[in-house]
């Protein structure tokens, strides 16, 4: 009789242990795999607005708020506009080695490849010289055609040459910078290059090199005081 009773209720005996196991597994899964449903979700609300913003306000009050908000928006937009450059500017991407010349409205008038710093650390005894293009916002300080390059010390160190005196003739190079050069401060320039085949690659000692045609357009578009954005 006992054996027959047990055989007649297999489903109930399975259900007895299945439900608690299932509930336990469900709880564990919800804890482990859905942290977003945790109690802590409400703790984020310390930064959230704690009460409805416009509750209980009349339509007239809402209109006034909207008007004030619109005026604020217009004021802020004009302040942002004043921060924008008043002359054409250039944006240089050092990772992709590309430049973008833009007009005052922010429209791109010319893009192309360039060469930027090779991110190299030259170790010469105790000296550590870093060759990279600095990032940030710069201003064209000076523009010059056929500018000679006064070689700094690192140009000689890199070639294994002895460093000459400051006024030595070997320091003057008339061909490296190309037809045009624009100083952007701290010894960095936008200039031409003899190595046109390296354009698009990070090969320079920090300056931005452009191809001949691009350089001419950039030189003729930018003026003293134009902004240079490098990232």
């Amino acid at each position: 009789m006992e054996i027959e009773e047990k055989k007649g209720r297999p489903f109930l005996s399975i259900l007895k242990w299945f439900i608690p196991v299932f509930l336990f597994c469900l709880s564990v899964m919800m804890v482990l795999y859905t942290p977003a449903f945790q109690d802590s979700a409400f703790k984020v609300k310390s930064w959230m607005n704690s009460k409805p913003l416009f509750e209980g306000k009349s339509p007239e009050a809402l209109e006034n708020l909207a008007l004030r908000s619109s005026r604020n928006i217009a004021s802020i937009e004009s302040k942002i506009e004043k921060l924008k450059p008043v002359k054409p500017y250039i944006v240089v991407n050092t990772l992709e080695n590309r430049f973008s010349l833009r007009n005052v409205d922010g429209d791109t008038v010319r893009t192309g490849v360039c060469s930027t710093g090779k991110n190299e650390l030259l170790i010469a005894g105790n000296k550590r010289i870093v060759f990279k293009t600095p990032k940030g916002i710069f201003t064209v300080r000076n523009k010059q055609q056929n500018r000679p390059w006064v070689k700094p010390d690192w140009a000689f160190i890199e070639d294994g040459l002895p460093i000459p005196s400051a006024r030595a003739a070997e320091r003057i190079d008339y061909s490296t910078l190309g037809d045009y050069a624009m100083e952007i401060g701290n010894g960095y320039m936008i200039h031409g290059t003899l190595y046109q085949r390296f354009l698009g690659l990070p090969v320079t000692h920090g300056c931005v090199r452009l191809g001949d045609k691009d350089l001419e357009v950039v030189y003729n578009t930018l003026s003293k005081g134009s902004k240079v954005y490098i990232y």
Partner: protein
Amino acid sequence: MLVTACLVFVSIVTVIRPVFNRNPFPRTAARNYSEEKKKAGKDEIVNPGEDTVAAPETFSNSKDAQNKLLELKRKENLLRSRLMLATEDSTYLVLDLINNLAILELKGIPLHQCHIIHATISNSIKLYSKEALMGWIAEPFALKNVEATIPKISYIEKIAPKDTLEANKMVTEPKETKLGDVLVVMDFERNLRLVISQNEQPDPDGLSLISEIRTRYNKIEVSKSILALTKFNREPVKPQIEIVIPKSDATILYKALPFNTRIILKL
């Protein structure tokens, strides 16, 4: 039966009940964020502050008025944040999740813009209404911690040659550098976590690095969950936004943003 009852009670108290109590606005229905409108804007440099918001007019009803005012306030906050960061000298990121754009800006000028291929927003953000979120996104988020699979700055070390003979032997032809696989995890103030991952399939080495970081963060969350279960109290969860963008864009964004960067969130 007693064990079952205990398990059910624990599940209700620690998991089920908080789920239903999480909405701070009983009157405001939580909206699914994925239902928001998306605009195209792939090639043009988009000004994230520009929105098509209707000028204030005589509102037909209170709800309509509230919605329009909410949009105006949202735009005002966004512009105020942009102005705040534009007056500084640092690069910052504008994450426009409505237009699916990530824009690198400096002094209000968009330097680089990339289209977000896919964005995943965690539930702790999605389940809150726009009204509730306004306080959270009103100001820029400052970066507190960052971890990535690629170095932020890397230099090739070179020993200066002793003479011209040695200099001539050195390799002068530049090699095109291969971009490493990218996963960036950025923790900001107010508990925001931003994960930037690449769209391209990573190679085996990159995949192991990416998996290692993801596994580590998941383990931290799991251990927190288990600890919460024992204490009936848990640390605040980090609302997470994960964006998938091309590898080159992810690399650019990570390398261009300074260590103390800030981001503006447009939701």
